[in-house]
């Protein structure tokens, strides 16, 4: 019986172990090793930090790196600001079928691929697009208006793409807040602002943090949206990694960039958790 139980456990753990080792550990270790070698001749490599040095010595790389981080944080905050009222409405203000319907509406855009969704934004925002035409027709603009290929367009795309991943954890945590507790907050003299600050937000904090982590990671690692909606000036760090791997065929530098991105995202998530006094166990468990 004990042996059978052990066998069962081993079988159950096998997919997880395979997934972790084949898809996470081995590629990352390999990537790390690649990032640490320098090409000194044809087919000849040496162990060195040259790739990382290149990253720190080239202002464009550093600048793009910081830009990506700041824009991702901004996109995360914007997503939170928009998603919070939406989630509160879905979780607390409506009940039953309406609730399910609204939740489904948040999900519907994700039935089509990200590429198609991004094209949707391009149709709206481009020079000959719908918004531009409406503005001209209404006499608010004298000529065609180009709204694509800038940071604002990237931001719109990122927030739109991330919305669901913020709404889901927020709705889940807000649903677990009992109406009684909110009513008690008012009953004991609180107004809308203080109930929100002292009761609703502290209660939703695990959802806020986990939603923010997911959205931030998605923004930071997004490739499609910044590439399609951003212009020449709007470089995204993933574009740099892509160009090193695919265009320049410089896997060593690309791997180093990849690791810098991993370190950056880990640092920012860690900092955010410290700042909000949350722990990973509390938000994910």
């Amino acid at each position, binding site marked *: 019986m004990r042996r059978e139980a052990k066998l069962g456990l081993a079988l159950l753990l096998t997919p997880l172990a395979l997934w972790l080792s084949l898809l996470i550990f081995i590629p990352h270790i390999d990537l790390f090793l690649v990032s640490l070698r320098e090409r000194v001749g044809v087919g000849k490599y040496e162990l060195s930090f040259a790739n990382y040095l290149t990253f720190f010595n080239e202002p464009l790389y550093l600048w793009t790196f910081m830009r990506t981080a700041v824009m991702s944080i901004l996109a995360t905050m914007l997503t939170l600001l928009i998603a919070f009222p939406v989630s509160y409405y879905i979780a607390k203000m409506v009940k039953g079928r309406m609730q399910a319907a609204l939740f489904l509406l948040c999900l519907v855009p994700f039935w089509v691929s990200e590429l198609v969704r991004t094209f949707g934004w391009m149709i709206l925002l481009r020079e000959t697009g719908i918004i531009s035409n409406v503005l001209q027709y209404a006499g608010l603009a004298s000529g065609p208006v180009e709204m694509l290929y800038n940071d604002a367009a990237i931001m719109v795309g990122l927030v739109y793409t991330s919305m669901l991943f913020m709404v889901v954890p927020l709705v889940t945590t807000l649903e677990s807040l009992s109406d009684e507790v909110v009513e008690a907050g008012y009953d004991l*003299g609180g107004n809308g602002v203080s109930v929100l600050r002292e009761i609703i937000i502290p209660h939703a904090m695990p959802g806020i943090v986990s939603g923010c982590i997911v959205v931030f990671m998605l923004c930071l690692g997004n490739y499609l949206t910044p590439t399609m909606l951003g212009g020449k000036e709007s470089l995204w760090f993933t574009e740099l990694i892509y160009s090193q791997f695919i265009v320049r065929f410089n896997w060593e530098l690309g791997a180093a960039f990849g690791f810098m991105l991993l370190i950056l995202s880990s640092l920012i998530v860690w900092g955010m958790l410290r700042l909000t006094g949350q722990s990973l166990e509390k938000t994910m468990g």
Partner: protein
Amino acid sequence: MRPSPLAGAFVLPERPTRKTGMTPDLHCSALTKRFGDTTAVDNVSFSVPPGSFFSILGPSGCGKTTIMRMIAGFLEPSDGDIQIKGKSVLNVPPNKRPVNMVFQHLALFPMMNIEENIGYGLRRAGLPKGEITTKVGEALERIGLPGIGKRKVDELSGGQKQRVAIARCMVLEPDVLLLDEPLGALDLKLRERMKVELKSLQAAFDTTFVYITHDQSEALVMSDNIAVMNEGRFEQMGSARDLYYRPDTAFVAGFVGDSNRWQGRVTRIEGGHVEVQSETGLTLRGASHGRALQAGDMAQAFVRPEAIRIAHGADELASFDTTITGQVTSLLFNGAASRVLVQGEAGHEAIEVNLPQSGEFANLAKGDTVHIGWSSDQANVFAAGGL
């Protein structure tokens, strides 16, 4: 209407209650709440004098929670007025009303510790920090839990949470404290203890409590006054004793306490005494207590198991005007509240009778012949159709 000072001198001796001259803490007049086509609360009026314990007792869905939520301000009445200390609060939002509520599931704030929970209302009122600390300390002292201020909500037992929930309201010194079935979530033993404790807390804080419950023993034990509610209306309002011994309606007679109940036809009326022939063939005598009944009317009769005397010999029951001889069909042992079911010889359904614990029935067994009887004053007869 307030009597003039001179008139008051004549009125006072006749009304020696403390209500005289005091504005009630809470006064509801013609309170009505409609949700679409259904009327949840139908023209309810009542007054609660200062410092008293008022209960609204009714089955679930009778509208008692709706009344509570209207008083607290979470619902707008469709009609009628709510006055607290003589002032209408209809247009006052919940956070500005001088009423606080202890919720059914207590609704302590899980994100705060006990101190912060109790201090929440004081912080909202903008009191200085030092004063809040003092008041919170006093409140904890008052509920007999000093030194738990730094604990988390989920570290407390059910009874402790209960007391903290009350303290959280009482630090704000509300004119009226509303309690929405706060004992419902507790286990039986704790509930019994909390009943006594709530009553003494009410005395300690000297505040008006309005308590809603579907549990009659909670209402009977704690309240100065009870309103029995059914389908949005008050059936009867009075002291626990009134409701128990002198129910006004068949609903109250059936809802408060246990009763043997018969449906039948009035065969004879003599003064206040009514003779009823039940559908099952039992002839019994009861009192109408002033209710209009005529021979031939359909009627309902209620007799409490504890109002029925049980005896070994028929001669012991000579003073009672309803006596039945029958067999014990079942013994329902429940300690002090033990009962027997007695099946009369006439073939009607078994009657539940309280078993005296003085020893003479200790050997009573199934199948024994006994005599039971009650005086007609103890049997309440109502016109049927009132249900």
